[in-house]
Protein backbone atom coordinates (compact mmCIF):
# COMPACT_ATOMS: atom_id res chain seq x y z
CA UNK A 1 0.00 0.00 0.00
CA UNK A 2 1.31 3.46 -0.88
CA UNK A 3 2.12 6.00 1.80
CA UNK A 4 -0.53 8.45 2.96
CA UNK A 5 -0.57 12.13 2.07
CA UNK A 6 0.08 14.75 4.72
CA UNK A 7 -3.59 15.71 4.56
CA UNK A 8 -4.65 12.12 5.30
CA UNK A 9 -2.23 11.97 8.17
CA UNK A 10 -3.52 15.27 9.54
CA UNK A 11 -7.07 13.93 9.37
CA UNK A 12 -6.02 10.97 11.49
CA UNK A 13 -4.83 13.21 14.33
CA UNK A 14 -7.44 14.39 16.79
CA UNK A 15 -10.14 13.16 19.12
CA UNK A 16 -12.35 10.30 17.96
CA UNK A 17 -10.16 9.55 14.95
CA UNK A 18 -8.90 6.12 14.04
CA UNK A 19 -5.29 5.30 13.32
CA UNK A 20 -5.11 4.17 9.68
CA UNK A 21 -3.88 0.56 9.46
CA UNK A 22 -1.13 1.59 7.09
CA UNK A 23 0.35 3.94 9.68
CA UNK A 24 0.73 1.08 12.12
CA UNK A 25 3.07 -0.68 9.76
CA UNK A 26 4.75 2.19 7.92
CA UNK A 27 7.53 3.84 9.90
CA UNK A 28 7.70 6.81 7.54
CA UNK A 29 4.01 7.62 7.75
CA UNK A 30 4.04 7.08 11.49
CA UNK A 31 6.90 9.55 11.88
CA UNK A 32 5.19 12.16 9.71
CA UNK A 33 1.95 11.75 11.61
CA UNK A 34 3.79 12.05 14.92
CA UNK A 35 4.95 15.53 13.92
CA UNK A 36 1.35 16.77 13.71
CA UNK A 37 0.49 15.12 17.01
CA UNK A 38 3.62 16.50 18.67
CA UNK A 39 2.89 20.08 17.59
CA UNK A 40 -0.63 19.83 18.96
CA UNK A 41 0.74 18.46 22.23
CA UNK A 42 3.24 21.30 22.36
CA UNK A 43 0.50 23.91 22.03
CA UNK A 44 -1.45 22.25 24.79
CA UNK A 45 1.37 22.97 27.22
CA UNK A 46 0.37 26.63 27.24
CA UNK A 47 -0.70 27.90 30.61
CA UNK A 48 -4.34 28.47 31.30
CA UNK A 49 -5.10 32.19 31.39
CA UNK A 50 -4.96 33.43 34.95
CA UNK A 51 -8.37 34.75 35.90
CA UNK A 52 -9.05 35.83 39.45
CA UNK A 53 -12.23 34.83 41.20
CA UNK A 54 -13.10 38.51 41.47
CA UNK A 55 -12.88 38.91 37.71
CA UNK A 56 -15.04 35.86 37.21
CA UNK A 57 -17.60 37.17 39.68
CA UNK A 58 -17.61 40.62 38.06
CA UNK A 59 -18.14 39.28 34.56
CA UNK A 60 -20.75 36.81 35.80
CA UNK A 61 -22.73 39.61 37.40
CA UNK A 62 -22.44 41.66 34.20
CA UNK A 63 -23.68 38.71 32.14
CA UNK A 64 -26.73 38.22 34.34
CA UNK A 65 -27.43 41.94 34.34
CA UNK A 66 -27.13 42.03 30.57
CA UNK A 67 -29.39 39.03 30.05
CA UNK A 68 -32.65 40.71 29.19
CA UNK A 69 -35.55 39.36 27.27
CA UNK A 70 -34.63 38.97 23.60
CA UNK A 71 -36.51 41.28 21.29
CA UNK A 72 -39.01 39.76 18.96
CA UNK A 73 -37.43 39.30 15.56
CA UNK A 74 -38.61 41.64 12.88
CA UNK A 75 -40.24 39.77 10.07
CA UNK A 76 -38.52 40.46 6.77
CA UNK A 77 -40.48 40.43 3.53
CA UNK A 78 -38.71 37.19 2.60
CA UNK A 79 -39.79 35.38 5.73
CA UNK A 80 -43.28 36.87 5.45
CA UNK A 81 -43.53 35.61 1.89
CA UNK A 82 -42.24 32.21 2.96
CA UNK A 83 -44.88 32.01 5.70
CA UNK A 84 -47.68 32.94 3.34
CA UNK A 85 -46.45 30.41 0.78
CA UNK A 86 -46.22 27.70 3.43
CA UNK A 87 -49.72 28.48 4.67
CA UNK A 88 -51.12 28.31 1.12
CA UNK A 89 -49.34 25.03 0.55
CA UNK A 90 -50.88 23.59 3.68
CA UNK A 91 -54.35 24.71 2.64
CA UNK A 92 -54.08 23.57 -0.98
CA UNK A 93 -52.35 20.24 -0.54
CA UNK A 94 -53.43 18.69 2.76
CA UNK A 95 -52.64 18.91 6.40
CA UNK A 96 -49.12 17.70 6.90
CA UNK A 97 -48.03 15.52 9.75
CA UNK A 98 -44.83 16.81 11.22
CA UNK A 99 -42.51 13.91 11.91
CA UNK A 100 -41.16 13.83 15.41
CA UNK A 101 -37.52 12.92 15.80
CA UNK A 102 -37.12 9.76 17.86
CA UNK A 103 -35.21 11.57 20.60
CA UNK A 104 -37.23 14.77 20.56
CA UNK A 105 -38.38 15.76 24.03
CA UNK A 106 -42.06 15.20 24.65
CA UNK A 107 -44.11 17.71 26.58
CA UNK A 108 -45.30 16.32 29.88
CA UNK A 109 -47.78 19.10 30.53
CA UNK A 110 -50.89 20.38 28.88
CA UNK A 111 -50.97 24.13 29.37
CA UNK A 112 -54.22 26.04 29.14
CA UNK A 113 -54.14 29.79 29.40
CA UNK A 114 -56.84 32.33 30.01
CA UNK A 115 -57.26 35.30 27.73
CA UNK A 116 -54.39 37.71 28.00
CA UNK A 117 -51.81 35.30 29.38
CA UNK A 118 -48.29 35.76 28.07
CA UNK A 119 -45.98 32.80 28.41
CA UNK A 120 -43.16 30.76 26.96
CA UNK A 121 -42.91 27.00 27.10
CA UNK A 122 -39.61 25.22 26.65
CA UNK A 123 -38.61 21.64 27.20
CA UNK A 124 -35.74 19.24 27.08
CA UNK A 125 -35.72 15.50 27.84
CA UNK A 126 -35.21 16.18 31.54
CA UNK A 127 -36.63 19.62 32.15
CA UNK A 128 -39.74 21.48 31.19
CA UNK A 129 -40.23 25.12 32.01
CA UNK A 130 -43.13 27.50 31.55
CA UNK A 131 -42.17 31.13 31.95
CA UNK A 132 -45.33 33.06 32.79
CA UNK A 133 -45.08 36.79 32.30
CA UNK A 134 -48.66 37.61 33.11
CA UNK A 135 -52.10 36.12 33.32
CA UNK A 136 -53.43 32.78 34.49
CA UNK A 137 -52.71 29.28 33.26
CA UNK A 138 -53.86 25.81 34.21
CA UNK A 139 -51.49 22.90 33.90
CA UNK A 140 -52.04 19.19 33.83
CA UNK A 141 -48.70 17.56 34.36
CA UNK A 142 -48.23 13.87 33.65
CA UNK A 143 -46.32 11.79 36.14
CA UNK A 144 -42.68 12.70 35.98
CA UNK A 145 -39.73 10.34 35.98
CA UNK A 146 -37.10 10.39 38.70
CA UNK A 147 -34.87 12.79 36.79
CA UNK A 148 -37.56 14.97 35.28
CA UNK A 149 -38.66 18.38 36.44
CA UNK A 150 -41.51 20.68 35.68
CA UNK A 151 -41.59 24.28 36.82
CA UNK A 152 -43.48 27.51 36.29
CA UNK A 153 -41.23 30.56 36.59
CA UNK A 154 -42.01 34.17 37.43
CA UNK A 155 -39.71 37.03 38.29
CA UNK A 156 -40.00 36.52 42.01
CA UNK A 157 -40.07 32.75 42.31
CA UNK A 158 -41.08 29.40 40.93
CA UNK A 159 -43.62 26.65 41.34
CA UNK A 160 -42.42 23.08 41.04
CA UNK A 161 -44.62 20.03 40.76
CA UNK A 162 -44.36 16.31 40.49
CA UNK A 163 -47.39 15.20 38.56
CA UNK A 164 -50.45 17.25 39.33
CA UNK A 165 -53.18 19.61 38.14
CA UNK A 166 -52.92 23.19 39.24
CA UNK A 167 -53.53 26.82 38.32
CA UNK A 168 -51.01 29.62 38.48
CA UNK A 169 -51.59 33.33 38.16
CA UNK A 170 -48.90 35.94 37.69
CA UNK A 171 -49.50 39.67 38.12
CA UNK A 172 -46.82 42.20 37.23
CA UNK A 173 -44.47 39.30 36.55
CA UNK A 174 -44.87 38.09 40.14
CA UNK A 175 -46.61 35.02 41.44
CA UNK A 176 -49.98 36.04 42.81
CA UNK A 177 -52.04 32.85 43.17
CA UNK A 178 -51.57 29.10 42.99
CA UNK A 179 -54.43 26.63 43.29
CA UNK A 180 -53.84 22.87 43.42
CA UNK A 181 -56.39 20.32 42.26
CA UNK A 182 -54.29 17.17 42.39
CA UNK A 183 -50.90 16.22 43.71
CA UNK A 184 -48.40 18.34 45.59
CA UNK A 185 -46.87 21.66 44.63
CA UNK A 186 -44.11 23.70 46.22
CA UNK A 187 -44.12 27.48 45.80
CA UNK A 188 -40.76 29.13 46.29
CA UNK A 189 -40.36 32.87 46.40
CA UNK A 190 -37.38 35.05 47.01
CA UNK A 191 -37.17 35.93 50.65
CA UNK A 192 -39.93 33.55 51.74
CA UNK A 193 -40.05 30.06 53.12
CA UNK A 194 -41.14 27.39 50.69
CA UNK A 195 -44.88 26.73 50.77
CA UNK A 196 -46.18 23.22 50.23
CA UNK A 197 -49.65 23.01 48.79
CA UNK A 198 -51.68 19.84 48.76
CA UNK A 199 -54.74 19.16 46.64
CA UNK A 200 -57.53 21.57 47.44
CA UNK A 201 -55.24 24.34 48.67
CA UNK A 202 -55.05 27.85 47.32
CA UNK A 203 -52.17 30.19 47.97
CA UNK A 204 -52.42 33.90 47.28
CA UNK A 205 -49.79 36.53 47.69
CA UNK A 206 -51.84 39.38 49.17
CA UNK A 207 -53.43 37.37 51.94
CA UNK A 208 -50.27 35.40 52.73
CA UNK A 209 -52.50 32.52 53.70
CA UNK A 210 -53.60 29.22 52.33
CA UNK A 211 -57.36 29.26 51.95
CA UNK A 212 -60.23 27.16 50.70
CA UNK A 213 -61.64 28.35 47.41
CA UNK A 214 -65.29 29.26 46.83
CA UNK A 215 -67.69 28.12 44.16
CA UNK A 216 -67.55 29.58 40.68
CA UNK A 217 -66.42 28.94 37.12
CA UNK A 218 -63.14 29.15 35.33
CA UNK A 219 -62.71 31.47 32.38
CA UNK A 220 -62.61 29.93 28.90
CA UNK A 221 -59.15 28.58 28.26
CA UNK A 222 -57.26 27.75 25.10
CA UNK A 223 -54.69 25.08 24.62
CA UNK A 224 -51.09 26.08 24.04
CA UNK A 225 -48.94 24.04 21.68
CA UNK A 226 -46.08 22.59 23.69
CA UNK A 227 -43.15 24.21 21.97
CA UNK A 228 -40.88 27.12 22.73
CA UNK A 229 -42.54 30.32 21.62
CA UNK A 230 -43.66 33.69 22.85
CA UNK A 231 -47.30 34.54 22.63
CA UNK A 232 -46.50 38.12 21.73
CA UNK A 233 -49.86 38.71 20.13
CA UNK A 234 -51.79 38.11 23.31
CA UNK A 235 -53.94 41.05 24.37
CA UNK A 236 -53.52 42.87 27.65
CA UNK A 237 -54.65 40.93 30.73
CA UNK A 238 -58.18 41.14 31.98
CA UNK A 239 -58.93 44.14 34.07
CA UNK A 240 -60.99 42.04 36.47
CA UNK A 241 -58.96 40.41 39.22
CA UNK A 242 -58.62 36.65 39.43
CA UNK A 243 -61.03 35.99 42.26
CA UNK A 244 -61.45 32.89 44.31
CA UNK A 245 -64.50 31.89 42.32
CA UNK A 246 -62.40 30.95 39.34
CA UNK A 247 -60.63 28.31 41.34
CA UNK A 248 -63.51 26.24 42.53
CA UNK A 249 -64.30 24.61 39.22
CA UNK A 250 -60.93 23.02 39.12
CA UNK A 251 -61.56 19.31 38.95
CA UNK A 252 -61.92 17.27 41.02
CA UNK A 253 -63.95 19.43 43.38
CA UNK A 254 -62.02 21.02 46.20
CA UNK A 255 -62.65 19.10 49.44
CA UNK A 256 -64.89 20.91 51.87
CA UNK A 257 -62.68 20.25 54.84
CA UNK A 258 -59.93 22.61 53.74
CA UNK A 259 -58.98 24.90 56.60
CA UNK A 260 -59.28 28.48 55.42
CA UNK A 261 -57.24 29.80 58.29
CA UNK A 262 -54.30 27.47 57.83
CA UNK A 263 -50.95 29.25 57.94
CA UNK A 264 -49.11 29.67 54.70
CA UNK A 265 -46.14 27.54 55.72
CA UNK A 266 -47.36 24.54 57.59
CA UNK A 267 -45.00 22.68 59.86
CA UNK A 268 -42.57 20.67 57.76
CA UNK A 269 -43.52 17.02 57.60
CA UNK A 270 -40.15 15.73 56.55
CA UNK A 271 -36.52 16.63 56.94
CA UNK A 272 -36.49 17.60 53.30
CA UNK A 273 -39.27 20.12 53.79
CA UNK A 274 -37.39 21.50 56.77
CA UNK A 275 -34.26 21.65 54.64
CA UNK A 276 -36.13 23.61 51.97
CA UNK A 277 -37.26 26.10 54.59
CA UNK A 278 -33.77 26.48 56.00
CA UNK A 279 -32.45 26.97 52.49
CA UNK A 280 -35.02 29.61 51.65
CA UNK A 281 -34.15 31.48 54.85
CA UNK A 282 -30.47 31.24 53.99
CA UNK A 283 -31.18 32.55 50.54
CA UNK A 284 -33.11 35.48 51.90
CA UNK A 285 -30.32 36.33 54.33
CA UNK A 286 -27.75 36.00 51.58
CA UNK A 287 -29.57 38.60 49.54
CA UNK A 288 -29.70 40.86 52.54
CA UNK A 289 -25.95 40.34 52.92
CA UNK A 290 -26.36 38.84 56.36
CA UNK A 291 -23.73 36.38 55.34
CA UNK A 292 -22.85 34.57 58.54
CA UNK A 293 -26.48 33.88 59.35
CA UNK A 294 -27.06 32.78 55.78
CA UNK A 295 -24.17 30.33 56.06
CA UNK A 296 -25.66 28.89 59.25
CA UNK A 297 -29.01 28.27 57.56
CA UNK A 298 -27.40 26.73 54.52
CA UNK A 299 -25.37 24.45 56.78
CA UNK A 300 -28.58 23.39 58.52
CA UNK A 301 -30.24 22.82 55.17
CA UNK A 302 -27.40 20.61 54.02
CA UNK A 303 -27.57 18.59 57.20
CA UNK A 304 -31.33 18.11 56.97
CA UNK A 305 -31.29 17.36 53.24
CA UNK A 306 -29.17 14.26 53.81
CA UNK A 307 -28.54 12.71 50.44
CA UNK A 308 -31.12 14.76 48.59
CA UNK A 309 -29.80 16.95 45.75
CA UNK A 310 -30.69 20.02 47.80
CA UNK A 311 -27.71 19.22 50.03
CA UNK A 312 -25.34 20.06 47.19
CA UNK A 313 -26.98 23.45 46.61
CA UNK A 314 -26.92 24.19 50.31
CA UNK A 315 -23.26 23.23 50.69
CA UNK A 316 -22.30 25.43 47.76
CA UNK A 317 -24.15 28.48 49.00
CA UNK A 318 -22.89 27.93 52.52
CA UNK A 319 -19.34 28.07 51.18
CA UNK A 320 -20.16 31.12 49.05
CA UNK A 321 -21.67 32.95 52.00
CA UNK A 322 -18.60 32.22 54.11
CA UNK A 323 -16.35 33.31 51.26
CA UNK A 324 -18.19 36.58 50.78
CA UNK A 325 -18.11 37.17 54.52
CA UNK A 326 -14.33 36.74 54.53
CA UNK A 327 -14.78 33.97 57.07
CA UNK A 328 -11.61 31.92 57.72
CA UNK A 329 -13.72 28.76 57.42
CA UNK A 330 -14.51 29.53 53.77
CA UNK A 331 -11.54 27.55 52.45
CA UNK A 332 -12.55 24.49 54.48
CA UNK A 333 -16.14 24.82 53.29
CA UNK A 334 -15.06 25.10 49.65
CA UNK A 335 -12.68 22.18 50.05
CA UNK A 336 -15.44 20.12 51.64
CA UNK A 337 -17.80 20.98 48.79
CA UNK A 338 -15.27 20.01 46.14
CA UNK A 339 -14.50 16.70 47.85
CA UNK A 340 -18.09 15.84 48.71
CA UNK A 341 -19.62 16.69 45.34
CA UNK A 342 -16.94 15.88 42.76
CA UNK A 343 -19.44 15.67 39.92
CA UNK A 344 -21.15 18.97 40.72
CA UNK A 345 -21.34 21.45 37.84
CA UNK A 346 -20.28 24.07 40.36
CA UNK A 347 -17.11 22.25 41.26
CA UNK A 348 -15.00 24.34 38.87
CA UNK A 349 -16.30 27.60 40.31
CA UNK A 350 -15.70 26.38 43.87
CA UNK A 351 -12.25 25.16 42.95
CA UNK A 352 -11.39 28.52 41.37
CA UNK A 353 -12.46 30.36 44.51
CA UNK A 354 -10.55 27.93 46.67
CA UNK A 355 -7.38 28.37 44.61
CA UNK A 356 -7.74 32.14 44.85
CA UNK A 357 -8.15 31.91 48.62
CA UNK A 358 -5.16 29.63 49.03
CA UNK A 359 -3.04 31.82 46.78
CA UNK A 360 -3.70 34.72 49.14
Amino acid at each position, binding site marked *: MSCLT*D*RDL*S*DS*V*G*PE*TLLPPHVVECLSCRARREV*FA*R*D*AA*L*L*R*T*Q*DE*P*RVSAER*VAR*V*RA*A*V*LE*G*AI*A*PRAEKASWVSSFARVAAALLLVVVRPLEVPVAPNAPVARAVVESSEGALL*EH*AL*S*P*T*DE*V*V*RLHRGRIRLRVAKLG*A*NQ*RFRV*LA*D*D*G*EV*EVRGTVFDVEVTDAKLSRVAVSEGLVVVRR*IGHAAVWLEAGRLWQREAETVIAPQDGGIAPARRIVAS*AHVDASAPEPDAAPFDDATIAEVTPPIPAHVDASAPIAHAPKTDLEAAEIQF*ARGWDLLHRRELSSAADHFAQAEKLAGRA*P*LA*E*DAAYWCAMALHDAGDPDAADALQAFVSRYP*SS*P*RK*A*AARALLDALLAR
Partner: protein
Amino acid sequence: MTARLIPIGRTDPRTDEALVAACVAQDRTALGELFDRYSRAVWRFHARFLGNSGDTDDLVQATFIEVWRAARGFRGGSSVRVWIFGVAYNLARRHVRTRGRRRAFLEGLALLPVAPEPPLDKIADDRRLLRRAIERLHALSPEHRVAVMMVDLEGIPSVEAARALGVRPGTFGRRLFEARRLLRDALAEETR
Protein backbone atom coordinates in the same frame (compact mmCIF):
# COMPACT_ATOMS: atom_id res chain seq x y z
CA MET B 1 -34.39 45.95 41.48
CA THR B 2 -33.30 42.91 39.62
CA ALA B 3 -35.21 39.84 40.67
CA ARG B 4 -33.50 36.51 40.87
CA LEU B 5 -35.04 33.10 40.96
CA ILE B 6 -34.37 30.83 43.86
CA PRO B 7 -32.17 27.97 42.67
CA ILE B 8 -33.49 25.43 45.12
CA GLY B 9 -35.18 22.10 44.99
CA ARG B 10 -32.87 20.84 42.30
CA THR B 11 -33.56 17.18 41.89
CA ASP B 12 -30.34 16.61 39.97
CA PRO B 13 -27.75 18.67 38.12
CA ARG B 14 -29.45 19.97 35.02
CA THR B 15 -28.05 18.88 31.70
CA ASP B 16 -26.52 21.46 29.40
CA GLU B 17 -29.44 21.07 27.03
CA ALA B 18 -31.89 21.65 29.86
CA LEU B 19 -30.05 24.81 30.81
CA VAL B 20 -30.26 26.11 27.25
CA ALA B 21 -33.98 25.32 27.21
CA ALA B 22 -34.36 27.18 30.48
CA CYS B 23 -32.52 30.15 28.97
CA VAL B 24 -35.16 30.23 26.26
CA ALA B 25 -37.69 30.57 29.05
CA GLN B 26 -35.61 33.44 30.46
CA ASP B 27 -34.43 31.56 33.51
CA ARG B 28 -31.33 33.54 34.40
CA THR B 29 -30.21 31.02 36.98
CA ALA B 30 -29.73 28.65 34.04
CA LEU B 31 -27.50 31.19 32.33
CA GLY B 32 -25.57 31.49 35.57
CA GLU B 33 -25.08 27.74 35.64
CA LEU B 34 -23.90 27.70 32.04
CA PHE B 35 -21.49 30.46 32.95
CA ASP B 36 -20.21 28.48 35.93
CA ARG B 37 -19.66 25.45 33.74
CA TYR B 38 -18.04 27.03 30.71
CA SER B 39 -16.73 30.48 31.53
CA ARG B 40 -13.23 29.18 32.17
CA ALA B 41 -13.13 27.38 28.83
CA VAL B 42 -14.45 30.49 27.07
CA TRP B 43 -11.85 32.63 28.81
CA ARG B 44 -9.16 30.26 27.63
CA PHE B 45 -10.59 30.29 24.15
CA HIS B 46 -10.61 34.07 23.82
CA ALA B 47 -7.23 34.48 25.48
CA ARG B 48 -5.69 32.04 23.04
CA PHE B 49 -7.56 33.33 20.05
CA LEU B 50 -6.84 37.01 20.62
CA GLY B 51 -3.55 36.75 22.44
CA ASN B 52 -4.48 39.97 24.18
CA SER B 53 -6.08 39.69 27.57
CA GLY B 54 -7.24 43.31 27.48
CA ASP B 55 -10.50 42.49 25.72
CA THR B 56 -10.99 39.00 27.03
CA ASP B 57 -13.37 39.88 29.84
CA ASP B 58 -15.59 41.86 27.49
CA LEU B 59 -15.67 39.03 25.00
CA VAL B 60 -16.47 36.43 27.65
CA GLN B 61 -19.33 38.62 28.80
CA ALA B 62 -20.51 39.16 25.22
CA THR B 63 -20.31 35.41 24.55
CA PHE B 64 -22.67 34.48 27.37
CA ILE B 65 -25.08 37.27 26.60
CA GLU B 66 -25.11 36.01 23.03
CA VAL B 67 -25.68 32.48 24.32
CA TRP B 68 -28.70 33.81 26.21
CA ARG B 69 -29.98 35.66 23.16
CA ALA B 70 -29.34 32.84 20.71
CA ALA B 71 -30.51 29.96 22.92
CA ARG B 72 -33.71 29.73 20.94
CA GLY B 73 -31.67 28.86 17.86
CA PHE B 74 -29.83 25.96 19.49
CA ARG B 75 -30.84 22.86 17.56
CA GLY B 76 -28.75 20.25 19.32
CA GLY B 77 -26.60 19.59 16.24
CA SER B 78 -23.55 19.66 18.47
CA SER B 79 -22.95 19.59 22.20
CA VAL B 80 -23.72 22.78 24.10
CA ARG B 81 -20.03 23.21 24.89
CA VAL B 82 -19.07 23.15 21.22
CA TRP B 83 -21.98 25.42 20.33
CA ILE B 84 -20.74 27.94 22.88
CA PHE B 85 -17.30 27.78 21.31
CA GLY B 86 -18.93 28.52 17.96
CA VAL B 87 -20.63 31.57 19.47
CA ALA B 88 -17.33 32.66 21.01
CA TYR B 89 -15.52 32.26 17.72
CA ASN B 90 -18.03 34.35 15.78
CA LEU B 91 -17.71 37.15 18.31
CA ALA B 92 -13.92 36.97 18.41
CA ARG B 93 -13.68 36.99 14.64
CA ARG B 94 -15.99 39.98 14.39
CA HIS B 95 -13.99 41.68 17.10
CA VAL B 96 -10.75 41.21 15.18
CA ARG B 97 -12.24 42.33 11.90
CA THR B 98 -14.19 45.36 12.94
CA ARG B 99 -11.79 46.90 15.35
CA GLY B 100 -8.56 46.21 13.55
CA ARG B 101 -7.09 44.54 16.55
CA ARG B 102 -4.61 42.44 14.62
CA ARG B 103 -1.77 44.73 15.51
CA ALA B 104 -2.84 44.78 19.12
CA PHE B 105 -2.88 41.06 19.47
CA LEU B 106 0.42 40.65 17.69
CA GLU B 107 1.90 43.09 20.16
CA GLY B 108 0.25 41.15 22.90
CA LEU B 109 2.16 38.03 21.95
CA ALA B 110 5.00 39.15 24.14
CA LEU B 111 2.64 39.05 27.10
CA LEU B 112 1.47 35.52 26.50
CA PRO B 113 2.34 33.26 29.38
CA VAL B 114 4.64 30.34 28.81
CA ALA B 115 4.85 27.24 30.90
CA PRO B 116 6.61 28.21 34.12
CA GLU B 117 7.78 24.68 34.74
CA PRO B 118 8.96 22.21 32.14
CA PRO B 119 6.09 19.82 31.40
CA LEU B 120 6.61 16.12 31.18
CA ASP B 121 6.74 16.09 27.45
CA LYS B 122 10.37 16.51 26.50
CA ILE B 123 9.45 18.60 23.46
CA ALA B 124 7.86 21.23 25.61
CA ASP B 125 11.01 21.58 27.64
CA ASP B 126 12.06 24.12 25.07
CA ARG B 127 10.14 27.30 25.91
CA ARG B 128 11.48 28.92 22.82
CA LEU B 129 9.74 26.29 20.74
CA LEU B 130 6.45 26.82 22.51
CA ARG B 131 6.68 30.57 22.10
CA ARG B 132 7.38 30.07 18.43
CA ALA B 133 4.36 27.77 18.13
CA ILE B 134 2.14 30.35 19.81
CA GLU B 135 3.46 33.09 17.56
CA ARG B 136 2.80 30.94 14.56
CA LEU B 137 -0.69 30.11 15.78
CA HIS B 138 -1.56 33.78 16.08
CA ALA B 139 -0.14 34.54 12.67
CA LEU B 140 -2.70 32.21 11.13
CA SER B 141 -5.96 33.51 9.72
CA PRO B 142 -8.91 33.33 12.16
CA GLU B 143 -10.39 30.41 10.22
CA HIS B 144 -7.18 28.40 10.42
CA ARG B 145 -6.48 29.36 14.01
CA VAL B 146 -9.88 28.33 15.28
CA ALA B 147 -9.51 24.95 13.56
CA VAL B 148 -6.32 24.20 15.51
CA MET B 149 -7.79 25.60 18.72
CA MET B 150 -10.96 23.57 18.60
CA VAL B 151 -9.42 20.24 17.63
CA ASP B 152 -5.90 20.30 19.05
CA LEU B 153 -6.41 22.50 22.10
CA GLU B 154 -10.00 21.86 23.10
CA GLY B 155 -10.19 18.25 21.94
CA ILE B 156 -13.34 18.65 19.88
CA PRO B 157 -13.82 16.14 17.04
CA SER B 158 -13.42 17.73 13.60
CA VAL B 159 -16.90 16.88 12.42
CA GLU B 160 -18.54 18.43 15.47
CA ALA B 161 -16.36 21.53 15.29
CA ALA B 162 -17.20 21.96 11.60
CA ARG B 163 -20.90 21.71 12.37
CA ALA B 164 -20.66 24.31 15.13
CA LEU B 165 -18.80 26.71 12.86
CA GLY B 166 -21.16 26.14 9.97
CA VAL B 167 -18.61 24.85 7.47
CA ARG B 168 -18.40 21.57 5.58
CA PRO B 169 -16.27 18.89 7.26
CA GLY B 170 -14.01 18.74 4.21
CA THR B 171 -13.38 22.48 4.32
CA PHE B 172 -12.71 22.34 8.02
CA GLY B 173 -10.31 19.40 7.55
CA ARG B 174 -8.44 21.31 4.86
CA ARG B 175 -8.08 24.37 7.07
CA LEU B 176 -6.91 22.22 9.94
CA PHE B 177 -4.35 20.54 7.75
CA GLU B 178 -3.07 23.83 6.33
CA ALA B 179 -2.73 25.28 9.80
CA ARG B 180 -0.92 22.23 11.09
CA ARG B 181 1.40 22.25 8.13
CA LEU B 182 2.30 25.89 8.72
CA LEU B 183 2.95 25.15 12.38
CA ARG B 184 5.01 22.11 11.50
CA ASP B 185 7.17 24.01 9.02
CA ALA B 186 7.70 26.90 11.42
CA LEU B 187 8.76 24.61 14.22
CA ALA B 188 10.99 22.60 11.90
CA GLU B 189 12.81 25.82 11.01
CA GLU B 190 13.18 26.61 14.67
CA THR B 191 14.77 23.31 15.55
CA ARG B 192 17.09 23.30 12.58
